[in-house]
């Protein structure tokens, strides 16, 4: 699966610096360079492409508004992916709160995602993943979503999460352990 090419660091840094001076075209170029990788992170947390696209839009918007605060232009990618991961996690939690309200109104509705699936279509799997991700801690969700990204080293994930490589491994280990249980029906 193509996770999007890792952008040339020098080119990205030049575009970041231009964006910091208010160059919109430069930021548009950054969007084109990083949207695939941002989507990969968001899809791993939210399960579905449409939901992920929402989170990615919110992430890029936040990055645009705060790009002047980024001190090291070389660190744009980890900075952006952290923003996107956090946006995806917040969105998943907000969606869950809304769903909980609906569920109270409809007491007969089943918790479809965590029950045994009758048909493993893409929609159902994406819903199940989103629900399972909500059972993880924020750090675990961040770690597992970034860990699988192509060209992303454990050290880079650690930088994004602002913790040690060992801590990243620990979060990934826990995330996998929980997901294995939560998604066991889909692993068979």
């Amino acid at each position, binding site marked *: 699966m193509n996770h999007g090419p890792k952008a040339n660091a020098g080119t990205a840094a030049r575009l970041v610096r231009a964006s910091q001076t208010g160059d*919109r075209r430069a930021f548009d170029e950054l969007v084109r360079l990083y949207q695939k990788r941002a989507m990969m992170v968001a899809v791993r947390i939210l399960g579905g492409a449409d939901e992920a696209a929402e989170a990615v839009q919110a992430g890029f918007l936040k990055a645009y508004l705060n790009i002047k605060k980024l001190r090291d232009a070389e660190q744009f990618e980890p900075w952006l992916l952290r923003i996107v991961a956090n946006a995806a996690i917040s969105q998943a939690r907000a969606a869950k709160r809304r769903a909980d309200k609906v569920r109270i109104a409809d007491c007969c509705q089943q918790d479809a995602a965590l029950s045994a699936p009758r048909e493993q279509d893409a929609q159902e799997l994406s819903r199940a993943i989103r629900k399972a991700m909500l059972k993880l801690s924020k750090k675990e969700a961040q770690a597992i979503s970034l860990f699988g990204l192509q060209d992303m080293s454990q050290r880079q994930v650690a930088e994004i999460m602002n913790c040690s490589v060992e801590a990243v491994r620990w979060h990934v280990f826990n995330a996998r352990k929980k997901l294995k249980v939560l998604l066991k029906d*889909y*692993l068979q």
Partner: protein
Amino acid sequence: MRNEKERIDLLLEQNAARQLAGFEWERLNAAISSRLDQTTRTKTFASIIPMALKVAGGLAAAAVILIAIMTVDTPDDLRLDNGQRAVVRFAEPAGTASVQIGHTPLKSQVFVAVAPARSTLAKCDVRIIDVEDERERNGLRPAWIIITRPEPVFADNGKAKDMRDLICMF
């Protein structure tokens, strides 16, 4: 365990691949661009309003200061506590100082007894002024001060109280 781990990763990978197959990247790009445009417009509008308010506020403040300068008493026309006016001029820019005034038996030199006879010193906050008085006594020119603290600790609270604020020192 290793297999299970890999299967979990594979499942996430497969889901992502399925979800993003045929995904319209240009559409996402356009959506992001549109939201950025909208934000930029809002930001620009939001930044113009405070700027306009600042300019208007600055002009209003300048007008108020100008009116105040034109109407407020100048140092040449200070109002004393008793409602009298004393024509004075500052030798230096207005300021305050804390001084100790020695008690003098020559009451005529002092409009107000700042300290009773039993005390030798009274401490006041004062403003030093100059009246361009040509009089001299024992080779000294008079200097006038205004006590800016409401009342010296040992001030005379008798009939002369109303004039306690103006003192002539030789």
